[in-house]
C-alpha cells in the first residue's frame, strides 16, 4: 500500500509536469473536442432521427441545479430539445471516457512495451500491477477533469441542464471508473501476452463507446440474453445511472425513511454497477497477474 502511494506520487508529478509543459496542447484538445462534439450533436439533433431515445422527463427531485432549465423549445436555443442534446453529450463523454481508459490498457500498454517503458516499470520493486494502477488512476482523474470541463461547456452552450448531486455523482463516477479499470486490467493482461489482440481491442472500445452513447433503460428490456450481456459490459449500467443523475437530477433519496441510497427509477442498475465493479476488478487484476507471469515466460514484456 505504501508502495502504491509512492508510485502514485511519482505519477502525479510526472503528469503534472507534462500537463504544464504542454498546456497548449491540452487546451487545444479541449477546444477541438468541444467543436467536434457540438457539430456532431447539432447534426444529430437536426436530423431528428433520435426520437426513440429520451424518455418522458420525470420532474427532477430536489437537487442542486447549476442552471435553471429553460422550457423546451425556447427560440434562440441551438437545438430544439436541449435535454435530449445534453443527454447525448453526456453519453458521448462517458463513451470517450470508456474509450480512453480501455485504450490506456490496450494501445497504451502496447506502446509502452514497444518503447521499453514497460520493462522499466517491471524493474521497479513495487510490481507492474501497482505501477499500472497508479498510472491509470492519474490518467483517469485527468480525463474526468478535462471531459468535465468539456461537458460543462457544451451544456452551457446548448442551454441544457446538468444536475450535480454531491453524493450520487462522485460515487457513481468512482464506481464507473473502477469498473472500467477492472475491465481494462483484464483486456490489458491479454494484450501483454497476445500483442495482436491490441487491434481487436479497438472493436471492444468502439462497442463500449456506442453503448455509453445509447445506453438507456429501454435497452434492457429485450431478450434476456441480450440483457445479461449488456449488464455484463462495464459501461451499460454506469451510463444509465449517470444519465439519471446528471440529466434527470435523480440522486440520493431525500426525505422520509431511506429505503435505497439511490432513488433512481432503475435502482437495480446501480446494484448491477456495484456487482460489475467487484467482479471486473477482481477478475481483471487476477487475469492481469496471471498474464503478466505468462508474459515473462514468453518474453513479451519488451519490444519483442
Amino acid at each position, binding site marked *: 500500500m505504501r508502495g502504491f502511494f509512492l*508510485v502514485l*506520487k511519482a505519477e502525479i508529478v510526472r503528469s503534472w509536469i507534462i500537463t504544464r*509543459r504542454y498546456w497548449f496542447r491540452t487546451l487545444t484538445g479541449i477546444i477541438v473536442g468541444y467543436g467536434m462534439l457540438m457539430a456532431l450533436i447539432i447534426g444529430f439533433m437536426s436530423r431528428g432521427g433520435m426520437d426513440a431515445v429520451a424518455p418522458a422527463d420525470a420532474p427532477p427531485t430536489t437537487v442542486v441545479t447549476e442552471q435553471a432549465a429553460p422550457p423546451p423549445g425556447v427560440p434562440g436555443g441551438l437545438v430544439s430539445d436541449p435535454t435530449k442534446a445534453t443527454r447525448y453529450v453526456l453519453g458521448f463523454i462517458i463513451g470517450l471516457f470508456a474509450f480512453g481508459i480501455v485504450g490506456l490498457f490496450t494501445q497504451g500498454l502496447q506502446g509502452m512495451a514497444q518503447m521499453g517503458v514497460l520493462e522499466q516499470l517491471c524493474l521497479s520493486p513495487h510490481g507492474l500491477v501497482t505501477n499500472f494502477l497508479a498510472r491509470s488512476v492519474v490518467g483517469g482523474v485527468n480525463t474526468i477533469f478535462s471531459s468535465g470541463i468539456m461537458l460543462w461547456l457544451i451544456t452551457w452552450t446548448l442551454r441544457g441542464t446538468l444536475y450535480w448531486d454531491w453524493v450520487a455523482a462522485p460515487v457513481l463516477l468512482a464506481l464507473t471508473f473502477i469498473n472500467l479499470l477492472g475491465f481494462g486490467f483484464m483486456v490489458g493482461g491479454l494484450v501483454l501476452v497476445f500483442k495482436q489482440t491490441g487491434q481487436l481491442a479497438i472493436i471492444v472500445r468502439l462497442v463500449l463507446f456506442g453503448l455509453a452513447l445509447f445506453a438507456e433503460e429501454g435497452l434492457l428490456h429485450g431478450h434476456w440474453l441480450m440483457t445479461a450481456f449488456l449488464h455484463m459490459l462495464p459501461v451499460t449500467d454506469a451510463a444509465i445511472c449517470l444519465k439519471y443523475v446528471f440529466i434527470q437530477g435523480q440522486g440520493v433519496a431525500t426525505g422520509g425513511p431511506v429505503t435505497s441510497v439511490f432513488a433512481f427509477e432503475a435502482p437495480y442498475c446501480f446494484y448491477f454497477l456495484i456487482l460489475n465493479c467487484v467482479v471486473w476488478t477482481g477478475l481483471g487484476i487476477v487475469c492481469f497477474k496471471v498474464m503478466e507471469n505468462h508474459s515473462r515466460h514468453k518474453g513479451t514484456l519488451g519490444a519483442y
Partner: protein
Amino acid sequence: MSAQPLVELDHVAKTFYTRHFLHLDEETRRRRLYARRTVHAARDISFTIQPGEVFGLLGPNGAGKTTAVKMISGLVRPDGGAVYVDGLDVERRRRQVLRQIGVVLEGTRTSIWPLTPLENLAYYGNLKDVRGAELKDRSHRLLDFIGLRDKKNVQVRRLSRGEKQKLAICIALIADPRIILLDEPTTGLDVQSSRAIKDRILEMTRELGKCVLVTTHDMAVAQELCDRIGIINKGELVTCRPTAELLDLFSEQIFAFKLDRAPAAAEFQDMPGVIAVEAENGEEGPALALTVVREAAGRSEALYEVIARLRRGGYQLRSINQRQQTLENVFLQLTTDLRESPAPSGRETK
C-alpha cells in the same frame, strides 16, 4: 574467491517459440497453415559473478546475451534451472532482488521523453524508493559525472542518442544498486563518455565491491574492462574464463612470415602441427599467417617445416613475427566454428 557470488546462473535454459501462420517451409516449399519455430536463447548456461568483479558476456547477434540479462533481472523466466541474485531465487523473491540491481537495457526509449533528465531521475528514483535530499543529491552527482551537466533541464526528446544512453545509465544507477547489468552500455557514446563509464565501472567494482555484468560487441572494451569473459553462441556458453587466461589459451600460436611476394597457399597445405594457413597481401606487404598447435614439439616441427617449404619455393623471408592475440581473434575463432580447440573445454574455471 570464497565469498558468496552476487549473481549465479545455475543450468539455465530458455527456449522461445514463435508462431507462424501460413508459414512457407523452406525445404519442402509447401505452405503450412501453422508452424512453430523454436529459438534456443539459453542452453544449460551456468556462471557466477563475484563481488568486485566485472563479467563480460560476448556473443554474436541473437546469441542470447540480452535474454541472459533479462533472466537475471526477472523480465524473462527461465524454462529450466535457476537464477540467484545475492543468494535469492529471482523467481520467488523478485521484489527483494529488484531492489539490488540496476539494469540498462538496449534501446534509448527507456526514459520519458517529455521530461528532463533531472525529472526522469526523480521519477525513476521514486519508483525505486529513493527520495528527498538523497535523490536530489544523487541525481546531480550522476548527471555531472556522466557529462550531462548542461543538459539537466533539457527535455529528453531533444537529446542526442548518446545522451539518452547516458541518461539510461544514470537511471540504472539512481538507486545505488549492488549489482549492475549493462546491456551494450557504450554503444553510441563518444570517447570521453565511454572512458568515464569504464572508469566508473572499475571504481564501483574495485572500491565499492559491486559487481557488473556487461554485454558488448566492442572487443576492446571487453578486453580492457572485464575480469572474466563468457562467450555465448546460439544460446550455448562456449567458454567462460578469466580474460587473461582466455587470451593466453589462444596466444603464441599465430606466426606471420613476411615475404617478398604473395605466397600460394596451396604450397603450404597439410603440414604437421599446423591448424590454419592464410596467405595475406595487405598493407603490410605479402605474408603468410600460420596458426600452429600450442604443444611445443608440434609447434617446433611446424615452424621448421614451413621454413623449409618457403626456401624450396624460392621465397625471400623478410621477418617472422609472433602475433599478439586479441580478444577479437579469440571471439571469432570461438564463434565461427563451435570448437574450443586447445585445452579441455570447461564450462567454468575459477
